[in-house]
């Protein structure tokens, strides 16, 4: 009988334990792949891309809080800055674009960001990419041009089932129970095409509209006309670039200078976000450890199932030897059986892992607006199959040695 047919017959004979082992290896590997892929994609999204913002001009307070609020529409802004100060920063020779905004409103669980209209028309959220309202891109309508108009990010529009012409009253605050600006009705005139960034998860209204919403105190209303009095939450800043697209090193001087002021600071998201990863890094490590333990346990499972299969088949293998098979052939049978199981586990784990990312990505996109791709290949993907082979080889080492040392006469002698 052919060597491979014997291997396959043996696998078929122990199909239950073989399938279980394949599944357990696949689960461990799938979890490893999913965790590493999410980890790398999150890192890429949150640290390298920077969501088109080189720096955020904001009030004094936690830089991480400012980044989370200004870019990810989470948390709350720790204060406000003067409009006149923003204008001074805007004039700085290093600054190429400054987009002021005012936060603190919400609707249907989504933040309402009062912002300069240039954000929708001129701002590049990724190098070379501006917001689109075009049908072909998945957008609708146009940018706002009047105080009573609004634009919804793709995820916000989808989640709240917003249409062009839908009217809404913003909530004055971001917490449950905060008052509603009931007499103010703003109409959606545009829905942004999906960008795969947290910008999708917000509603945008004109900055001017922020100050004149009914219910705001007289001081806030005064800010609509009196620029000396006006305050904003912050501003997205783009600075000059040097060769290779890197940020102009002068940004450090600008940051130092602004940070010396009493009320303001300049936050560079790419410097701040790694702090967040240091804080939440333990979650990654726990998940990776669980996945690693699961994979190792599946290797142990493979090891014991090979060992028990060998015990059952001692007599068969002895007979095989008696019919002329060499020690190496018998040893090879065990090793290849393990390799086939672990390879199948690896391949299944690869598909399962990417399936897991695909399912998870949908929920992440709905919840955070961040787009993950199931097809993303992390460093782990390239190691899966060699790793699975190594795992199978390690698990089969001892059973294979036992098969090699199998005594023909001893195992062929009558049992009773």
């Amino acid at each position, binding site marked *: 009988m052919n060597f491979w047919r014997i291997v396959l017959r043996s696998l078929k004979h122990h199909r239950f334990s073989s399938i279980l082992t394949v599944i357990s290896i696949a689960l461990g590997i799938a979890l490893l792949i999913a965790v590493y892929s999410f980890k790398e994609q999150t890192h890429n999204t949150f640290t390298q891309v920077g969501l088109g913002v080189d720096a955020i001009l904001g009030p004094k307070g936690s830089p991480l809080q400012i980044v989370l609020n200004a870019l990810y529409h989470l948390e709350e802004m720790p204060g406000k800055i003067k409009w006149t100060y923003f204008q001074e920063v805007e004039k700085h020779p290093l600054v190429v674009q400054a987009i002021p905004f005012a936060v603190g409103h919400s609707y249907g669980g989504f933040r309402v960001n009062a912002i300069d209209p240039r954000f929708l028309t001129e701002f590049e959220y990724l190098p070379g990419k501006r917001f689109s309202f075009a049908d072909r891109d998945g957008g609708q309508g146009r940018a706002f041009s009047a105080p009573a108009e609004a634009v919804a990010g793709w995820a916000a529009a989808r989640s709240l089932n917003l249409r062009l012409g839908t009217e809404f009253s913003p909530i004055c605050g971001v917490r449950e129970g905060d008052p509603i600006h009931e007499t103010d009705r703003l109409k959606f005139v545009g829905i942004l095409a999906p960008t795969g960034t947290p910008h999708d998860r917000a509603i945008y209204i004109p900055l001017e509209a922020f100050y004149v919403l009914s219910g705001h105190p007289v001081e806030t209303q005064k800010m609509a006309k009196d620029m000396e009095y006006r305050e904003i939450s912050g501003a997205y800043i783009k600075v000059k670039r040097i060769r290779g697209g890197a940020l102009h090193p002068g940004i450090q001087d600008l940051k*130092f200078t*602004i940070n010396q002021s009493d009320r303001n600071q300049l936050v560079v998201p790419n410097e701040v976000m790694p702090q967040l990863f240091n804080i939440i890094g333990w979650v990654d*490590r726990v998940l*990776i450890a669980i996945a*690693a333990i699961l994979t190792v346990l599946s290797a142990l499972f493979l090891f014991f199932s090979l060992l028990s299969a060998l015990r059952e088949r001692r007599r068969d293998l002895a007979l095989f030897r008696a019919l002329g098979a060499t020690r190496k052939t018998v040893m090879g049978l065990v090793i290849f059986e393990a390799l086939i199981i672990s390879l199948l586990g690896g391949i299944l784990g690869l598909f399962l892992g990417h399936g897991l990312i695909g399912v998870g990505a949908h929920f992440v996109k709905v919840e955070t607006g961040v787009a993950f791709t199931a097809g993303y290949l992390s460093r782990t993907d390239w190691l899966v199959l060699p790793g699975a082979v190594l795992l199978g080889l390690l*698990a089969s080492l*001892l059973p294979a040695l036992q098969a090699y040392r199998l005594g023909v006469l001893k195992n062929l002698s009558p049992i009773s």
Partner: protein
Amino acid sequence: MRRRPLALMLPAILILVLWGSIGQTAAAEEHHGHKAFHDGVLNVIGKELAHAEVLVVEDTLKVWFVGGGQDTGRSVHLKAAEIPLMVKIPGQGQKKLILKANPMKLAGEKMGYCSHFVARADWLKEVKEFEAAGSVVIKGVKEKLIIHYPEGYDPLHKHGHGDHEKEEHGKEHH
């Protein structure tokens, strides 16, 4: 019977290897000590009362007066409008240089409340190293201002802050 512990050790080794790789990626980068926020060199004033961060860019000598100890990210404001310096250049003798207050408007500075001083001179373009001395009234105390460029001045430590800083920066960029 002896073989079983050996077999059990293999997965254990695998666990250790995996843990090792996790630990490697998780290793937090730490840095401590004085940081020059403008990529200049730090020169101690008094007994770490403050620092003068010095940077030469072409024909301009830029000086930022910042906090002492590790507080080098905070400006220290001076009332002076000018600070005369006597600059010793190896092989060229002494030259006079006057640092002039250059308030950082975005930091809320003005004349009489300024931490940033500059001096311009053509010969600065050619100078690779120098020592300068003057005096300043800083935090209400009159102190000698000693600048060693490019190594930095720190009488309490053998090597200057310049070298120290390069090490610190190196660590940060790893």
